């Protein structure tokens, strides 16, 4: 069965420190992978996506993610966290048809930022 696992429910980092959020997936074919961020009372905003090609993907707000097929992982990283990055982060995987999106989401990781 297709699934996404985000093993960390909460992560706390100090402002200015580096960040890595983990994501592991189970999917039978070449996956399409996404990271979304959700601030309180807000919808989901796409940070970055991987379809094919270079396994290191750059996104908005200084985020990047690396696809590692051998580890079935797509971890999100940021070299220096800002207080405004505090939010919930979701990893998602397609079963992506050519025509449309249908995403499977992980349960999320809540990021807390210490001043």
């Amino acid at each position, binding site marked *: 069965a297709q699934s*996404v696992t985000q093993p960390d429910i909460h992560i706390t980092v100090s402002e200015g420190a580096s960040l890595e959020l983990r994501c592991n997936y189970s999917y039978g074919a070449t996956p*399409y992978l996404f990271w*979304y961020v959700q601030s309180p*009372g*807000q*919808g*989901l*905003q*796409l940070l970055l*996506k991987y*379809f094919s090609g270079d396994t290191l993907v750059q996104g908005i707000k200084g985020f990047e993610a690396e696809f590692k097929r051998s580890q079935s992982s797509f971890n999100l990283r940021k070299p220096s966290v800002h207080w405004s990055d505090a939010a919930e982060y*979701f990893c*998602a995987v*397609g079963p*992506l*048809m*050519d*025509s*449309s*999106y*249908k*995403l*499977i*989401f*992980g*349960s*999320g990781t809540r990021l807390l930022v210490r001043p």
Partner: protein
Amino acid sequence: DAGVTQSPTHLIKTRGQQVTLRCSPKSGHDTVSWYQQALGQGPQFIFQYYEEEERQRGNFPDRFSGHQFPNYSSELNVNALLLGDSALYLCASSLWGQTSLDTQYFGPGTRLTVL
């Protein structure tokens, strides 16, 4: 350029009642997907509409139904509400056939509380 809009923002219903949620897609988008996000969980795919037809469906009972109008807006209907239907309902829009080129945009959601 308006993004995805949803109404109402919040809704309180009692068990057994019926509810209708509304979504207007981002300008230029023709495909609408609905997701249910329970507290502390990631979003779960309910169904998707394109050309006024349901194209894909997740693992949700028939109590969940939808509709898409000629202007691409969409409604989600839930009958015989259960306590477990309490959740944030997210609408997402995209452009059919352009998944590798375009992005799926999410609305802010409707918070449904069933008492």
